[in-house]
């Protein structure tokens, strides 16, 4: 489906020379270096990395907007920047920050324009629109001008707009940015449903790790233009999660104990008014051992153990790899 091999992209960026008025030096920024990966049909892949890692550069190359410096990129047998017009028929793109709908016109008008842009045959258009309206719950929204829709409603319409021409591949660039919790969950459900039922391959970039957890079985993590990890989400967790978090409510004097625990592989996150949170380093000590020490010294009324959220995993990963 998607084959990327040794893909590199370097930009020339002008830097002003200090102390001169017009002096400029050119600096080469390597946005992407020898990126290699492939994605199969129907896969949902989370493409993650910190800001400036090269995520959007990759997406732009894959959607035919940018031409890479070197390397190969073949998507359904086409090279995006060489066969732009043929290639973009196969893809749908949702930019979470921008809209492709007409602000002052009813949503259905934007859909009709897309029908003309993609030259979608009448039958195919009707059928797909019906399916999308049903799947995304757009029935009540179609007649409203886009400016009157909530962000969550709008994002559902954006998804529909990107899928009208039945693309085989969908690029989602931060599809849940700015949405409230309920809308986020709705959008994730929809993406999942659409991909399963229409066999769409999805590449998803996001900063919200819950998106990844809900949607992607596979993640590609990049930093500074290079691929750092490519594999299952659970494997990533297993590889980088060496801690568990204990939250406890207690009565009694715990300071001496806590400082003793801190020197034995525990990191205190917070402790006040009889409530403490700490991370246990599993390479130094065990959860059971810590709990035992807590219960034997303090009067514990409630205790819970959690694996860290994927967010924390990523933050730690970034730190570890010095991104």
């Amino acid at each position: 489906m998607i084959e990327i091999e040794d893909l590199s992209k370097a930009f020339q960026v002008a830097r002003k020379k200090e102390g001169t008025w017009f002096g400029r030096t050119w600096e080469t920024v390597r946005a992407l270096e020898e990126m290699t990966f492939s994605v199969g049909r129907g896969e949902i892949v989370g493409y993650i990395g910190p800001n400036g890692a090269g995520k959007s550069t990759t997406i732009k190359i894959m959607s035919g907007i940018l031409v890479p410096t070197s390397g190969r990129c073949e998507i359904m047998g086409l090279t995006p920047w060489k066969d732009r017009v043929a290639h973009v028929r196969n893809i749908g793109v949702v930019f979470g920050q921008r809209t492709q709908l007409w602000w002052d016109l009813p949503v259905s008008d934007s859909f009709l324009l897309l029908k003309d842009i993609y030259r979608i045959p009448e039958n195919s258009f009707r059928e797909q629109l019906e399916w999308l309206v049903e799947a995304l719950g757009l029935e009540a929204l179609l007649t409203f001008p886009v400016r009157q829709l909530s962000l969550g409603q709008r994002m559902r319409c954006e998804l529909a707009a990107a899928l009208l021409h039945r693309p085989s591949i969908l690029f989602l660039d931060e599809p849940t940015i700015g949405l409230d919790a309920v809308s986020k969950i709705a959008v994730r459900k929809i993406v999942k449903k659409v991909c399963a039922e229409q066999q769409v391959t999805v590449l998803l970039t996001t900063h919200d790790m819950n998106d990844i957890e809900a949607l992607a079985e596979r993640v590609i993590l990049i930093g500074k233009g290079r691929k750092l990890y490519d594999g299952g989400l659970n494997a990533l967790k297993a590889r980088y999660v060496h801690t568990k978090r204990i939250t406890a409510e207690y009565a009694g004097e715990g300071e001496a104990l806590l400082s003793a625990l801190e020197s034995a592989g525990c990191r205190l996150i917070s402790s006040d008014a009889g409530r403490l949170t700490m991370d246990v380093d599993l390479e130094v000590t065990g959860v059971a051992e810590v709990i035992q020490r807590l219960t034997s010294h303090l009067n514990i009324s409630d205790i819970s153990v959690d694996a860290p959220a994927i967010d924390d995993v990523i933050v730690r990963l970034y730190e570890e790899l010095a991104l």
Partner: protein
Amino acid sequence: MKLLWRYTVYHFRSQLEYRVSFWLTTLGQFLVPFVSFAGMALLFRQFGTLEQWTLSDVALLYGVTQLAFAFNELFIRGFDSFSSLVVSGEFDRLLVRPRNMVLQVLGSKQDFTRFGRLVQSTIVFVWAIANASFQWTFLKGVCLALMVFGGMGIFAALFMGFATLSFWTIKGLEVVNLFTDGGREMAQYPLTIYPKAIQRFFTFAVPFFVVNALPLFFLTDVPGYEAAIYAFVPLIGFLALVPAYFIWNYGVRHYQSTGS
């Protein structure tokens, strides 16, 4: 064509969503060039002629230039305000659609408030035709129509060529107005009244001469310019679109290799 029509209808409907603002701006677009024409008429009343040209001759050129310009501001607005398309990232969106880029940029923006200018210039144009200082012939009619079309071609080429600059620099594009707005103001008068250097500039750099003084010689039967070929000289204005198109394509390719 069908797609372009849909774009046009959508822009019109979008702009009518804000009715008061729309009609007021349209009225303004009607009045502002009208004031400049009124000033022109007053000067002629005082001085009679400008070189050998009468008010109706000049009004004819005024009509041609304003019509061509208004048409461009209405339908070629996408190129006129192209920098905003690049800044907002909307240009990326156009690139991921399976259509010709020029067509999509044309569809990206149209400004129907320019209808005011269009109506105003049509009124002056019709008045100038009715009060011409010379006899109309069929060929002269053809020539006049070509002047308008050639003028549209030149303005469109200017808009398109300068839109390309947006791929390199976003700010400091005011210099562009020197050519578009400046060209419009200059070409309202017969270019023969200007110093030689300016005439040359508007002949070879920006070919307004071929839709302006040259066909006007033909229309007013200036000796030496009676040959029918001069009626078709305005077509050269359309040729300006060729280099503009190549410059534009070069810009798009540059954008695709640099991003920015």
